[in-house]
């Protein structure tokens, strides 16, 4: 068995904090600490060096975006730390701010996603291992707000689906499973998308996602 992923949770709602701990422990994660404010999160990361932090965006003292600020600071110091932002709202501005430097090991999910336990655990594992996990809602907003709407409209419906899933941070295999098509078919769609959007073709999943996000955000 592989070593369990070590997680720190920063969430000010006691109900959700306890629920998350219960869920993660049940799924074999190690929860190093569950805290309720950004300062405690900073101390906890400093001390325990976890693999990934689940961070609520809205936390005391001002209940605006303390969590996001703390997460951005933490990533500067601990480059290996995965950050999964966790919020009841999706703000495109937060997403672009979070992805500004580097999308490796970054996630941004609606809190509702914990209801689908396996997908949530999947996303967390992806972020912990340096991948990306963006909420479908984030991707929709990014697509909607993108100034490249013109070239995106040249994509076929299927290609748009693949693009969305790619932006969420899914691997080819996961996309294939989701759309019940073969991995080869996904590959072909991806190649087409990159051609149509005039993006440099890239081999690794991560670089592809980065390219797509940069594209949408520019």
């Amino acid at each position, binding site marked *: 068995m592989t070593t369990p992923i070590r997680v720190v949770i920063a969430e*000010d*709602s006691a*109900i*959700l904090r*306890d*629920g*998350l701990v*219960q*869920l993660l422990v*049940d799924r074999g994660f190690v929860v190093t600490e569950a805290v309720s404010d950004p300062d405690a999160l900073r101390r906890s990361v400093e001390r325990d060096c976890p693999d990934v932090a689940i961070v609520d965006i*809205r936390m005391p003292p001002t*209940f605006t975006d303390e969590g996001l600020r703390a997460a951005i600071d933490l990533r500067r110091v601990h480059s290996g730390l995965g950050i999964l932002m966790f919020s*009841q709202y999706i703000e495109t501005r937060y997403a672009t701010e979070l992805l500004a430097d580097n999308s490796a090991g970054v996630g941004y999910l609606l*809190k*509702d996603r*914990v*209801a*689908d*336990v*396996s997908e949530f655990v999947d996303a967390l594992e992806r972020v912990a291992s340096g991948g990306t996990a963006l909420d479908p809602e984030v991707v929709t907003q990014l697509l909607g707000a993108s100034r490249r709407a013109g070239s995106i409209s040249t994509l076929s419906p299927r290609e748009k689906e693949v693009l969305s899933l790619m932006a969420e941070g899914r691997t080819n295999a996961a996309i294939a499973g989701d759309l019940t098509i073969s991995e080869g078919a996904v590959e072909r769609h991806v190649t087409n998308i990159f051609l149509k959007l005039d993006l440099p073709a890239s081999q690794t999943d991560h670089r592809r996602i980065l390219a797509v996000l940069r594209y949408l955000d520019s």
Partner: protein
Amino acid sequence: MVIVLPEDLEIRIRRIAHAILRAPFTKQTWSELLFFVVGAPLAALGFAFIALTMAAGVSLAVTFIGLAMLALSIRGARKIGGIHRAVARGILGEQIDEPDPFVARPGFLGWLQSTLRDRAGWRAMAYAVIKVPLVFVGFFVAFAVWFDAFEFLTYPLQGADSAGEIGVVRVLFPPGFFSVGDPRFLHGVAIFCGGVFLLFLAPWAVRAVVYVDRLLMRSLLGPDAVAVRVRSLELARAQTVDASAATLRRIERDLHDGTQAQLVALAMRLGMAKEKLDDADHLDLDQVRELVVDAHRGAKEAITELRDLARGIHPPALDTGLEGALSTLAARNTIPTELTLELKDRPTPAIESIAYFCVAELLANVAQHAHASRASVTCAQHGRWLRVVVRDDGVGGARPSRLGSSSSGLTGLSDRVRAVDGRFDITSPPDGPTTITVDLPLHA
């Protein structure tokens, strides 16, 4: 027959006599004289400025420069008004608030237009113009009366021949008027008595003119009544807008931290239970049952929270009137609370809602802070007003504060009440008891 005066009347008469006898020697009397001495040249200068600029402005009115001159005149009138205010404050101690500050719209044309429409400027100009005859009258009255008083008092020392060469009283009392018996002696005594009379009359004559001036300054140099009302309405509106924004923010926070979090946790537990049930090979029914039990409890808590929140937005009991809603509040209060209701007409919903939330908040305060053993709520109609009184026998010391989260506290309540032109009075001495009176118009 002896007239027995009631005691308070006697005291009052004594006071008046005292005031009359002291008047010529008080500071106020001399301040008022000084006010005219200083005011006269100021009035003359101010009038000269306005007359010149207005004359130039009107004669050039067809050209642009004419309008600019007029505007200059109005701006100047405001400044002159400021000087008059300062003089009144410095010499008379008359505190007149500044009118609303002049706010020019951008650009020269905007400035011109705003200036020509500046009510305070025009009013100051009116004062500067009226001030001239007023100062003239004041000067005349003051110096005529004071000078004659001096003349008459010193008359016996001057000899009969020099009497009445100067002064108005000569016109009122022609020589020989008092000459009965020994004409020269009686004449002298009469004129001396007249001097004494004038000495005590003089302060009041001056005071009368100053009084007129005070009235004029208050109405023309101060903020005008409409502007004051508009400002208070603007303030009330701003507070209402702030309060409703704060209320929305509070509701959003309550939903976010409460119900929404509850539901997410609930969905998460059900999600875990579902996946455990799907995994038929390692099915642990006890674990699943535990999750479902937690979820069930969470759902019930969420329902309770949601109900409380909904009631905080608008209590359903209020739909049928204040009576039911208030009796529920009184009954639910942790401290024994007596409720008295006398309402003939039903207030408008907005007023009912404000009254309800006042009582709710005040009773909550009583329960939390007052250490009281009893509380009472009376809600009675007085004509077109609704008076709500909340009393407790607790420790007192309740006072509004702008600090912290008091937007929902006493300050918030008082803002809400004043927004509908109501009154909010707190009587809460340090040792208690506390009485809070809220007056609301029946129809807002």
